[in-house]
């Protein structure tokens, strides 16, 4: 057990080294690459700046909302009788609970994408408003569209949570509570907590990998387009916070 944990720590420590190695190799490899010609349009635009990007985001929100509604419609509003649901199967969740789980995931994703759309729309508005030929109508429609999408996905999320609370009244989620996630975790039993611990650890490992990938892609962006220090610094801060919180928790546990 001790051996496996020490080897996993070693593997984790190697990750930043791999990232740094990748950055060096990428930099040397791309050193000879010439900058992309400035007349090339990389702003995902057709009529207005970034309109294609916003169209993709809007389409993603709509698809996820429809999928969310479809998953909710496949979830019976009243939980089926327990014995009919599970029988003697080894499955951890019933088909109805699986549909509900899908709806929960999709509603979470659609909220994130809708907020991303709004954040990007606001950023574009803030950076373009003083420019000549500023497309006021496009920005206005874009902002209103993002706000409407947030409104709809939040309503859909509250409907999904309502259905979840009907299925699991003993571990109801309260959107109005500040400690919704913490309160919910406290209501889980030991087996379910073990599932959450395992999922959280995998998510932590994946975050380390993705932050490295994100940093490398920003280096590549700088090589091809222009120097982009802010995203790299931001990623670095997030990475430090991610690792720092992990070690703080393990340090706390070992000192108890």
């Amino acid at each position, binding site marked *: 057990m001790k051996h496996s944990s020490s080897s996993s720590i070693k593997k984790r420590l190697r990750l930043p080294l791999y990232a740094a190695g990748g950055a060096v190799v990428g930099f040397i490899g791309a050193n000879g690459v010439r900058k992309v010609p400035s007349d090339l349009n990389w702003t995902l635009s057709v009529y207005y700046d970034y309109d294609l990007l916003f169209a993709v985001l809007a389409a993603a929100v709509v698809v996820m909302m429809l999928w969310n509604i479809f998953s909710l419609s496949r979830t019976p509003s009243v939980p089926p009788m*327990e014995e009919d649901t*599970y029988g*003697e199967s080894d*499955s*951890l*969740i019933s088909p109805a609970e699986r549909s509900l789980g899908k709806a929960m995931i999709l509603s979470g994703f659609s909220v994130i994408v809708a907020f991303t759309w709004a954040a990007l729309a606001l950023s574009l508005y803030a950076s373009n408003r003083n420019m000549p030929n500023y497309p006021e109508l496009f920005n206005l429609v874009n902002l209103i569209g993002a706000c409407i999408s947030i409104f709809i996905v939040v309503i859909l999320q509250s409907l999904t949570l309502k259905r979840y609370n009907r299925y699991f009244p003993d571990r109801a989620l309260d959107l109005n509570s500040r400690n919704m996630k913490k309160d919910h975790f406290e209501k889980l*039993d*030991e*087996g379910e907590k*073990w599932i959450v611990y395992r999922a959280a650890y995998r998510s932590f490992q994946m975050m380390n990998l993705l932050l490295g990938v994100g940093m490398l892609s920003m280096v590549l962006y700088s090589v091809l387009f222009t120097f982009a220090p802010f995203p790299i610094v931001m990623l670095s801060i997030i990475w430090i916070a991610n690792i720092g919180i992990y070690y703080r928790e393990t340090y706390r546990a070992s000192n108890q």
Partner: protein
Amino acid sequence: MEELHNHVRELRARDRLSQTELAKLIGASRQTIALIERGDYSPSVVLALKIAHVFREPVEKIFELKGGD
């Protein structure tokens, strides 16, 4: 490497208990019972004792280490 094996499924069948009923008796979730039966999760001592109490069997008869020396 020794692994924890259990006879929860057999004992549950013997006592004609569903996973949900056993879960209610020991104050756990059905998911936890399914995890234990699949061998994915080793329960705490407290939960193992509760399971043993329901089946009226000693813990070592329900949970045993297999493999290794």
